[in-house]
């Protein structure tokens, strides 16, 4: 397949962050459907699932060095925090890690491709 060559422009820092994020999503995906989450609310797995899917798509976008990836990542980050505040399960470590990632993404934001 002949994909466009934007991948080559991705800095190594973003590659590392993206790989960590992919691994994190792989771990988090089964956990959102755990019996413990299901017990909190009937709709919680669905809501967390949508946020996680958005998070995954944003990482794919960042991997391709696209601005929409960063925008989607920030939106999914805030959506996730709102849900965690509502269920009273805030994790400071997760917030800090995401904040560091967002800073990394914002450093390269202007160099990223504006198109889809």
């Amino acid at each position: 397949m002949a994909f466009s060559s934007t991948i080559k422009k991705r800095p190594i820092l973003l590659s590392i962050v993206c790989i960590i994020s992919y691994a994190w999503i792989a771990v988090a995906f089964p956990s959102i459907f755990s019996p413990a989450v299901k017990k909190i609310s009937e709709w919680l797995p669905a809501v967390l699932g949508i946020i996680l899917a958005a998070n995954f798509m944003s990482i794919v976008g960042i991997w391709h060095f696209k601005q929409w990836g960063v925008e989607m990542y920030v939106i999914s980050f805030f959506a996730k925090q709102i849900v965690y505040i509502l269920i009273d399960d805030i994790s400071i470590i997760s917030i800090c890690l995401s904040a560091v990632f967002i800073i990394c993404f914002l450093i390269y934001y202007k160099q990223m491709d504006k198109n889809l």
Partner: protein
Amino acid sequence: MLVFRLLKESILFALNALVSNKLRTFLSLLGITIGIFAIISVFTVVDSLENSLRTSVASLGDDVVYVQKWPWTFGPDYPWWKYMDRPQPTTEELSEIQRRCQNAAAMAYEATFSKTVQYHDNSMDNVSLAAISDNFNDVKKLEINDGRYFSEAEFASGKNIALIGDAIVQGLFSGENPIGKEIEVMGRKLTIVGTLKKQGESMIGETVDNNVFVPVNFARNIVDMRKDQSNPTILVKAKTGITNAQLIDELTGIMRSIRKLQPLADDDFALNQTSMLSKQFDGLFGIVGIIGWIIGGFAILVGGFGIANIMFVSVKERTNIIGIQKSLGAKNYFILLQFLTESVVLSFIGGLLGLVIIYIAILFIGDSFGMTLVLSSSNIILGLTISILIGVISGFIPAYGASQLDPVEAIRSN
């Protein structure tokens, strides 16, 4: 409107692609079907058993505290040696609690014995002879089918009368009306004054169908009420608005005072409540749920990889079509949506099929084994959510790859 038109077009494209490759579609959705079947069937069984058990436990009375010798805790570390020398609750203690307790709506005494019951030539072994005090009906409602409950005078005098469960009626009186007839227990005649409605056995084995209820003042003449096997219990029902914790606090003080325990001495009685039973099962159901979730999770993961693989193949196969579409003006997001929809539809159908199989299995199990399993709305939502998300996650990378194709190179490819 444009969004809906695009979505409709994408769905039609996707369905067309799926229908034109029937075998491939079937094989790739099979992974998701098996995954959803595995995870949701385990959740369904666990939820149904849990609900059934909770209903059974609740039938014992959510607002009733049981004053007993043995606490309702189980497990390998149960310190039975601490409890074995404790005294059994007595009817005298019941009278004292009745006099002092402010938070109780009603209270009663109960002790059960396994006995043989006879009526003419018919006899039944292992019948539960339940010796009860007055007000028992206020703590645990006995549903009378025919006849009546005991009167206060009958309780006080210890009259030889009985209320019998449905299994006893069926076992001893085949078709005859038992009211006014006499049955024999341990050589003593008992006149039947009432029969109870058929209740059926709950998951924890609680039933009144096999019971013969007699006034406690009668039972004390024929059996040793302090026998450990009879499990003597004082049942205390909380007043409306009073929590079990408040009632337990009050009962602890009263029981310690009745038994004249020193301030530092341990309680020599147990105050049990139904939530203690529920807690014992929480751990068990939690473990079963986690096992099902892990097994189903792996199955879904495999299904997800299968869909991703099929989507890559699909993009590869249709590369020149994508090139033509792009050269005719199709936007990147349209190509993305087209392949993403295909993946989501594929996964959604797989999930739906998994849920249909579970539903059929539930009907079959219900008919064949008489088990009541319920496919709850939360499990349906969960199953469909998982399948849609698997579709999105496994289809996004191939779909995005397709949307980024260079039209000239794409048309040129074979």
